[in-house]
């Protein structure tokens, strides 16, 4: 029987996890080296802009891992994970806003610029405490986690599953988007939170901070990946896969399905929140558009492209799609939505197991082993 220690360590014994972590850390080292030690005019030099861009991709990758955890291993297609991402982002944004202090346009020592602009006299209660980093970082986990807890508790308890759950998660993020667009909410309305200066005392515009954020994101992705791996290889993970494949049967076997679902859902929401929190200082802005249903559904297609229920597939999908997005929107912005739309259709019709499915098939052929490692629904 596995003790709690081996429960967390087990992923490190897997070849796929070793490979994933190896590639990830190697890439981080290479990027750091190329950024710091290559002369700027060299073709191999990685600019600070590129480092931040890569950091952004890694945030998306972590978000995709979070979605894959619920979709791939729990069978819940969440079309609202952007909401958890954005909530984590807003928690971080609020901390960064308070760090501006009196350097804002209006020079108010406490109130952020947009509140001065709206003629607010004092900080709303829910902004209290965000000047302290530890509090803000806890909120990064707590805000999305709480939302997921309440929402999941209500939904799973009444056995809302499948398409219904997908649609109400979409409604959830849509409602939040409408709410955050309102100035009265006290989150900067339309413009969101921006104009950040520094984080933990480091200047956000300096190259060193950017590199640091990139590395932090890489480590967060590694930790998130290992945590997810640990969950899915544990007994709990096996029950959750059972819920995915035959919910009623699992319930009849005596498992409390809704508790498993709730636990996995909340963990996934927290991971998404962390991804959002790391995303905000790197792109320098958080606004309600992150809540848009389109963004949430885009995340799902990253996972679908990479391959469900593999975790590393989600990372591959997120990196590929976002790289393609950067390239496409740069060269011909009009074509991006065509490409994205076609991707949705092609992946679902022709690549139901994603890129990871292709890789597995090839490996199976080479090894000539019958039976897939991971069953997909």
């Amino acid at each position, binding site marked *: 029987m596995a003790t709690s220690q081996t429960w967390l360590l087990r992923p490190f014994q897997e070849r796929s996890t070793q490979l994933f972590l190896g590639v990830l850390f190697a890439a981080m080292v290479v990027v750091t080296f190329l950024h710091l030690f290559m002369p700027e005019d060299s073709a191999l030099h990685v600019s600070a802009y590129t480092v931040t861009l890569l950091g952004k991709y890694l945030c998306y990758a972590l978000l995709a891992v979070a979605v894959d955890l619920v979709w791939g291993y729990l069978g819940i297609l969440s079309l609202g994970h952007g909401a958890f991402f954005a909530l984590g982002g807003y928690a971080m944004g609020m901390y960064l806003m308070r760090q501006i202090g009196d350097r804002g346009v209006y020079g108010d020592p406490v109130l952020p610029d947009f509140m001065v602009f709206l003629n607010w006299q004092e900080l709303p209660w829910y902004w209290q405490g965000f000047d302290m980093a530890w509090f803000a970082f806890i909120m990064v986990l707590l805000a999305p986690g709480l939302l997921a807890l309440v929402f999941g508790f209500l*939904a799973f308890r009444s056995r809302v599953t499948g398409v219904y759950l997908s649609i*109400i998660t979409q*409604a959830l993020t849509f409602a939040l988007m409408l709410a955050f667009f309102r100035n009265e909410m006290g989150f900067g309305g339309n413009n969101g939170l921006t104009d950040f200066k520094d984080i933990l005392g480091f200047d956000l515009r300096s190259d060193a901070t950017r590199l640091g954020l990139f590395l932090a994101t890489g480590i967060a992705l590694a930790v998130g990946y290992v945590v997810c791996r640990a969950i899915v290889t544990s007994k709990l993970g096996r029950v959750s896969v059972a819920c995915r494949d035959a919910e009623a049967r699992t319930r009849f076997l005596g498992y409390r399905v809704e508790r498993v679902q709730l636990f996995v859902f909340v963990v996934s929401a927290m991971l998404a929140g962390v991804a959002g929190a790391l995303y905000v200082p790197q792109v320098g802005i958080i606004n309600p558009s992150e809540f848009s249903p389109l963004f949430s559904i885009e995340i799902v297609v990253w996972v679908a492209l990479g391959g469900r229920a593999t975790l590393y597939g989600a990372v591959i999908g997120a990196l590929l799609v976002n790289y393609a997005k950067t390239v496409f929107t740069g060269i011909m912005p009009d074509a991006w939505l065509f490409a994205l739309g076609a991707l949705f259709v092609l992946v679902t019709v022709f690549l139901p197991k994603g890129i990871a499915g292709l890789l597995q098939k090839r490996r199976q052929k080479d090894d000539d082993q019958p039976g897939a490692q991971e069953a997909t629904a």
Partner: protein
Amino acid sequence: MSIHRLLARMVLAVCLALGATLANAQAQTNAPEALLKRLVEAGQAEKTDLLKALSETGDERARGWLEAVRDGKLAMIEDTGALVIVVNNRGRNWQIADALTGEDLGEMSRRDLQSLRVNNALRADIEGILSVIDLTVADPGQRLDAARNLLGEVNEALATQLQARLQVEDNGQVRDMLTNALAIYQVEQGDVEAVATLSGSLNPTVRAALNNAVNSDDPALAAAAEEALASIEQKLKLNRAAETLYFGLSLGSVLVLAAIGLAITFGVMGVINMAHGELIMLGAYTTWGMQQLFPGQPGLALILSIPAGFLVAALAGIAIERSVIQYLKGRPLETLLATFGISLILQQLVRTVISPLNRTVVTPEWMSGSIMVNEALSLTLNRLYVIGFALVVFAGLMLIMRKTRLGLEVRAVTQNRAMARSMGIKATKVDIMTFALGSGVAGLAGVPLSQITNVGPNLGQNYIIDSFMVVVFGGVGNLWGTLIAGLSLGTINQLLEPWAGAVLAKIMVLVLIILFIQKCPRGLFPQKGRAAEG
């Protein structure tokens, strides 16, 4: 012929001619032209009488003259004594027209013109005379407007005239309005009994008059006025409720229209079509396209768009079904993703091919304007048409599903596909037809929507979440549920809006539905029996 006779005849003729001339001269002093002439020379006191006489001649030009006098634009050319109306009195040279014939006389230096002087007392008199003139025109609608304008404006002189007018007025509405106008005057004079006349009216001027009366020194009058105001307030509340209900129903019928096609594809077939909103958009763009094809005939184009919108969207639906959905049978979540991709492609297609900007769709004349039920309640026509259209579409769909062969086969295939096939139903064909029907209805929804919302590439996105909410709220697979859910969600939204604001109301409705689904996961009208175990 004798000379006598001839003489007698001549005398007679002369006499007759003389008499005629004399009579003529008498008439001329009362003719409009003469009155106008006398007006210029008359003193201030006499002017009012002259103007009144002028208005009583029944001459069509009287109104123009009175207005000209009021505005100080009636003038006399000093040299000739001819009366003119100043058309434009800017600058040194004024543009003038003949007062009698209306003929354009070009420009003339203002020094050569002598304007008729008016003071405020005269102006007020003229206003009164003018409104009385309007009370005598042939068109009852104009009479009603004139009577409405008189509310609160009645003075002593006018009151007697109105009483006279009341005797001859034959239109009921105009009579009521005149009675109200008189009653306001009487209340102002302290007449308690007149308050009773006013108690049923919804007119704001009446309310203002009553509010004044509440503060009067006469306790009896104040009490009566207060009572009348309370009853008016009650009536207003009812009207406001009716208005909210109307807005709610119209918003609800929009939701029903948008969702009813989805109720077929999602509810009956179980296909999650995220491109549903874009099919609505195609219908709206078809309307726009038809109007480009028939410029200047927006009404005809709109009517033709109804079948055209259905066809365009149905064909698009068939294309989607054949190219994607048939390969994803039994995988609802994948269908959701693939159709979402299609919706992105369709949106971008419209942006690239037509324009990223909103298109203007013309509203035909018979759809604009509103029906005024009473002073406090008017129903806009275009929303009335949308409500009607939604009900017709719903009834049509109900008929198709219940009474036709297609409806029977659709229900058979959705209930038990294998059994239906073994009974000889071509399930694939039924799939195509059902999806085409659902898509076509989405296209139908786009036609009226083009009248009340912006026609742009984002039109579909704005409706997709609402549509799903309506279908899920109403209970999947139940057309009645969709109707009830759409109408009630629209009404709830309108009820919340006054005190929560539009955005917050929408958020609250969304949260409400999310909570409701936790309570009743299968909607208002869940399917029962075997079909429910999906």
